[in-house]
């Protein structure tokens, strides 16, 4: 009976806490103030656009350019609000479904900056493709909203909803050009596969909810307080692991992981990505390729490093196999590609493989290396795709969106600075020494070797050398192709040149002074460990 009394008292305490929490919740709104501002301004943009472009007295104006500029303005304001929201300690809010720590804030900043640069890059392309409806920008903004929400999700429900916001807008962005067969086809493909992987996510989270009784990462962390890495492998040592049968929970993890690997386009689940990158508009592809990877990895980190840290040893083999497989696929299948977009898709698959390899070490250093690698991936992606989008061929067929490798023949003759920038970024992606790409790749191999995964490290180093071939082939096309006539390009806008130059100089500066990157990524990996 004594236990019962204690239980009752505990319950009373808990009840008081909930009351206090509900009183405090008015203050909590200020935590998600950037998101609230962001959504409200998107709603205003919808109203503004819908009223203005159906206005007969103004003769149905084309407002797509002005909406794009307004979108950039909104992103800048949200960035300022996010920076202003700085909290030094970890806090979770709204019944601990939304978390606010350094990881959240830094990743939100990165995503917002990356999307501002993307929006700057796509403007000319949208005009060329005659995408005149303003909803395109709105959908991009909605996708960014989903992504920054995913960074702060501390709950399976919130994470699912954020993924759904992001992926619904991505399906629409893929299918946006209705008069192109490729675009509609890729949109349909993306929709079917994305819906499939979302349903996998739901099945996994329902299994986790069924076994643990909670969807909250914080509660899961409390529930498995006794578990430490490796504790489930040595069953005799742990009293709890004998009592509980956690196999069903592991199945939940499996489904969740499959869905996240689908979204990240890792190797056995990657088949959709080159098709969709190739088929959809390049302005949509730049978003698919660059922005969502970071926040999906943050969800993985929160899941496996914060709440289910004890289980990571059961999954390390799975992570390593998937990572090595995607490195191999990304480097070998990329050799065959003639189109730049699908080549970049395979390159992104192999880069995601390297990131997952760093993640699979399960150490603090691994997580730090993961984030620094992802930041550099975003940076180089921004640079490469902006160059890709701003180099518009001067021919009669302006709407041709996809570029072959031969479209860049002798770029060094027509625009030598751009050729230098392009080749530098490619060398950084391949991991050549005087650039930041070398540093982060080296760190990944170091952290993998330090956790004694020699075999996978060897394979990935060899594959990295092989994948250098297709980066260098582009450089060969840029510089040394035997052609008499190069192509002519339209002049590049001032702001695009500014962003590309900015990204380019970051590559060199970050190599000379990698402390900036090191500290930033170190701050990001300071999540609260259960141990």
């Amino acid at each position, binding site marked *: 009976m004594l236990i019962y009394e204690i239980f009752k008292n505990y319950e009373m305490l808990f009840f008081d806490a909930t009351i206090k929490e509900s009183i405090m919740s008015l203050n909590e709104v200020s935590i998600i103030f950037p998101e609230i501002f962001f959504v409200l301004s998107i709603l205003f943009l919808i109203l503004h656009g819908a009223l203005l472009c159906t206005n007969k007295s103004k003769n149905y104006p084309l407002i797509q350019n002005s909406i794009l500029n307004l979108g950039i303005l909104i992103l800048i304001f949200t960035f300022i609000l996010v920076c202003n929201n700085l909290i030094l300690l970890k806090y979770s809010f*709204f*019944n601990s479904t939304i978390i606010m720590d350094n990881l959240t804030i830094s990743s939100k900043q990165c995503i917002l900056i990356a999307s501002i640069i993307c929006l700057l890059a796509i403007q000319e392309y949208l005009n060329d493709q005659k995408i005149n409806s303003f909803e395109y920008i709105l959908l991009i903004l909605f996708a960014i909203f989903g992504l920054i929400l995913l960074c702060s999700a501390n709950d399976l429900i919130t994470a699912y909803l954020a993924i759904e916001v992001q992926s*619904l807008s991505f*399906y629409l962005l893929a299918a946006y050009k209705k008069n192109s067969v490729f675009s509609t086809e890729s949109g349909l493909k993306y929709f079917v596969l994305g819906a499939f992987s979302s349903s996998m996510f739901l099945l996994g989270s329902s299994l986790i909810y069924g076994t643990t009784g909670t969807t909250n990462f914080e509660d899961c962390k409390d529930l498995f307080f006794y578990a430490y890495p490796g504790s489930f492998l040595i069953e005799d040592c742990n009293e709890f692991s004998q*009592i509980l049968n956690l*196999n069903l929970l592991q199945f939940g993890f499996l489904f969740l992981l499959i869905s996240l690997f689908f979204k990240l386009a890792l190797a056995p689940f990657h088949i959709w990505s080159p098709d969709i990158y190739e088929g959809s508009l390049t302005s949509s592809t730049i978003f698919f390729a660059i922005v969502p990877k970071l926040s999906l990895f943050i969800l993985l980190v929160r899941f496996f490093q914060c709440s289910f840290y004890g289980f990571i040893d059961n999954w390390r083999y799975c992570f390593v196999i998937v990572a090595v497989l995607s490195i191999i696929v990304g480097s070998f299948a990329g050799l065959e590609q003639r189109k730049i977009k699908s080549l970049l898709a395979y390159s992104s698959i192999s880069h995601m493989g390297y990131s997952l390899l760093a993640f699979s070490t399960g150490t603090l250093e691994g997580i730090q290396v993961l984030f620094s690698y992802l930041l550099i991936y975003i940076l180089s992606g921004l640079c490469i795709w902006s160059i890709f989008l701003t180099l518009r061929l001067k021919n009669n067929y302006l709407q041709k969106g996809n570029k072959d490798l031969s479209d860049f023949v002798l770029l060094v003759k027509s625009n030598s600075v751009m050729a230098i920038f392009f080749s530098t970024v490619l060398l950084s992606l391949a991991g050549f020494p005087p650039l930041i790409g070398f540093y982060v790749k080296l760190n990944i191999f170091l952290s993998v070797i330090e956790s004694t995964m020699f075999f996978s490290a060897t394979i990935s180093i060899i594959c990295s050398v092989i994948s250098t071939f297709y980066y260098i082939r582009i450089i060969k096309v840029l510089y040394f192709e035997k052609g008499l006539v190069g192509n002519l390009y339209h002049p590049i806008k001032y702001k695009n040149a500014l962003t590309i130059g900015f990204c380019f100089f970051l590559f060199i500066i970050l190599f000379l002074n990698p402390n900036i990157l090191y500290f930033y990524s170190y701050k990001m990996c300071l999540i609260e460990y259960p141990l």
Partner: protein
Amino acid sequence: MNLDMILFYFFSSILLLSSLLIIIEINTIYSILLLVLSFVMATSLLFLLESEFMALIFIIIYVGAISVLFLFVIIMLNVKITSSIKDTLKYFPIGNFLGLVFLIEILLIIFENYKTNSYTNSFLFNFNINWFYKLDSITDLKALGQILYTHYVPQFLIAGIVLLIAVVGAVVLTLSPKKVYIKTQDTFRQVSR
């Protein structure tokens, strides 16, 4: 075995069978009707669990709106029935092998997990609490509302945004600036036909 269990097994077996038949069935109309059947069975399962609101929402939204919409779409679309036996034979061995292995694994784990209460022998075993006195006796709808509007406000709002995106997407994908392609109803022709 009491009546509850008998009903549960009855409904769930029909649910599983009909959802299997949805995939196997070649004729799309039949598979939609089977979808309706599986929704109704899921509803009755929810009724057995005494969550009436969810059950009724299931009926109203899934059967009343979505499946009927599917039916209309299929009636309008003039779908040809093509046999997919060739493809099935091509993918049968490896696909079914992998699927069967996965299914057997899941079934094994589920049967193992729910055979006994795993807490029975430990100090974590529940002592008897009469939950009836602990619970508030409020209706299903009220309880849902209390949870939804207190603990899960942001999630509720985000769900609204998901719907908004769906609306924007429907407008974007269907609205075309050229009027030529739109089939409209000509009342005069219809009446005088």
